[in-house]
Every structure is written in structure tokens, then in C-alpha cells.
């Protein structure tokens, strides 16, 4: 079976490869959004936006989790959720750019995001070891490259990359399957 990383490389020129990646993660990403929104339609549109964003940024994917795109995809899902709550409307910029709703032959849903959607989101981050939490914050939130993260943490870029990778992998497990993360 091809790794996610390989599918994303192939997806630079082949939409079918991206579809294969979608098939692997659609249920998980949809479940992530459904648990937070409690709204089937909103979760569906947020899932669409998550994968549309992933398509548009697929060339920026870096294999930092042993070939898995899970941490990367759930980081995008988290961003889409946060952006929606902050803007008080569902994030759909990537779907609009790609014309996803026209192809679904329907209008996007009108749902007002609630602050409660974010409950449990940051707790998972808070439970990470401090070094991993700070590395993720610098890399994902502050958008520093690994040299910048390493400088801020007083370590090497390689070690910074490992911290981010491990932290994201743990986050993904806790967000998608809290019981598995306790193992």
C-alpha cells in the first residue's frame, strides 16, 4: 500500500492520488468535525473545506510522521474549525476557489459556529509535554521554519522537527481516539 506521503507527491499531478488519500481520512476528519459541531451539515462542509485546503497546500506537505499525512490533515482540520469560530461563519475559502459546491450542486450550509466547538481542542494540546507543545505552537501557530523553532527552543532543527512530529502524532490520536492515546 502506498504511503500517504507518496500519495501526496503523486497528487501534485494526479487528482486520483488525492482521492485515494481522501478515502483514507474522510471518515476521521468528518468525525473530528462532527464531534465538535454536533451538526451533520456543518461537519460535512468543514470536511470539504479541510480537504480543499489540503489540496491547495499539498506541495507544502513535509513528511514528518513516518509517511503519514494524518497529523498534517488534522492540523488543517483544526485550523478550519478555529477560523470558522473566529469569523463566526464556516470557513470555505478553498472550496469557493475550487468550485466544490458547484460540483456538489448545492449551496453551502448556513450555520453560525459556536465557541463550544472548540471545547476539548486546546485541552489536548495542553496535555502534551511542554517541549512538544511549545514546538507545535512555534511551528504551526507562529509559522516559524524549523531553524526558527530550533533557535527559540535552544536546540537543533532536527530535534525541533522530532518534537513537532511527535506532538502532532499524539494530538491526532487524542483528538480522533482518546482511548487509543491512553495506551
Amino acid at each position, binding site marked *: 500500500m502506498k504511503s500517504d506521503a507518496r500519495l501526496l507527491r503523486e*497528487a501534485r*499531478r494526479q*487528482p*486520483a492520488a*488525492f*482521492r485515494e488519500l*481522501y*478515502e483514507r481520512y*474522510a*471518515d476521521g476528519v*468528518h468525525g473530528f468535525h462532527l464531534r465538535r459541531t454536533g451538526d451533520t451539515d456543518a461537519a*460535512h462542509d468543514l*470536511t*470539504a473545506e479541510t*480537504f*480543499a485546503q489540503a*489540496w*491547495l497546500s499539498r506541495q507544502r506537505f513535509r513528511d514528518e510522521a513516518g509517511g503519514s499525512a494524518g497529523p498534517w490533515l488534522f492540523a488543517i482540520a483544526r485550523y478550519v474549525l478555529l477560523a470558522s469560530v473566529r469569523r463566526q461563519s464556516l470557513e470555505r475559502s478553498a472550496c469557493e476557489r*475550487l*468550485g*466544490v459546491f458547484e*460540483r*456538489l450542486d448545492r449551496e453551502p450550509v448556513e450555520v453560525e459556529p459556536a465557541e463550544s466547538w472548540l471545547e476539548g481542542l486546546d485541552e489536548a494540546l495542553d496535555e502534551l509535554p511542554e517541549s512538544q507543545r511549545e514546538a507545535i505552537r512555534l511551528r504551526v501557530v507562529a509559522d516559524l521554519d524549523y531553524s526558527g523553532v530550533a533557535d527559540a527552543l535552544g536546540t537543533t532543527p532536527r530535534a525541533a522537527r522530532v518534537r513537532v512530529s511527535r506532538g502532532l502524532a499524539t494530538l491526532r490520536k487524542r483528538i480522533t481516539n482518546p482511548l487509543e492515546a491512553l495506551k
Partner: protein
Amino acid sequence: MTGLDSSLTKLGAALERAAASDLDRPRARPRRAVLLAAAVAGIVVLTGAGFAAVRLISGGDVAASLPAGTLSLAGTEPTCTVVRPKRSAIGWEPSSRRSTLRSM
């Protein structure tokens, strides 16, 4: 093909079609005309700068740049005279400058 429910399967198909269209979309690329215009603009700027540099060097500047420390010039005040090129029988003679020394 998958175990996804029908709505997620439809979404996957829609995303794949959207992705295919996105790949077919022409990308903005540098055009030759733009590159040519940039090259011409660069030449004009460089030429203008060179011309300005030549015009800004006055006879006084040249005089001031003469090696004041040279012993043979001690006790003199160097000045410059610009000699215009003359047309000779065989064409333009190279321009030259002649410095004169004026005793103090």
C-alpha cells in the same frame, strides 16, 4: 470502492473533479514581453546613472583629486582644463585632459 457514506463519497468525487480542473487551470508565468521590458528598463537606468556620474565630475573635482601629496606639486595649486576633442583628418581624436600648474 470505499466504505464511506454516500454524502462523503459524493464529496470525494466533487473534490477529485475540482482538483482536476485546478490542475488544468493555466498558471501565471513570466512573459517574454515583461522580461524584455524589465531588461530595457534596467539598461536605461544604468545608462542614465553612468551619464549622471560623468556630468557630476567637474574640473574642480578632478583638480581636487590630483595627488596633493606628490612632492613635485608642493607649493603649487593644481587646476584642470578640459580639452575638447578635435576632428582630425582620420577621425575623432581621443579626448584628453591637460593639467596646468599655477604657481602660488
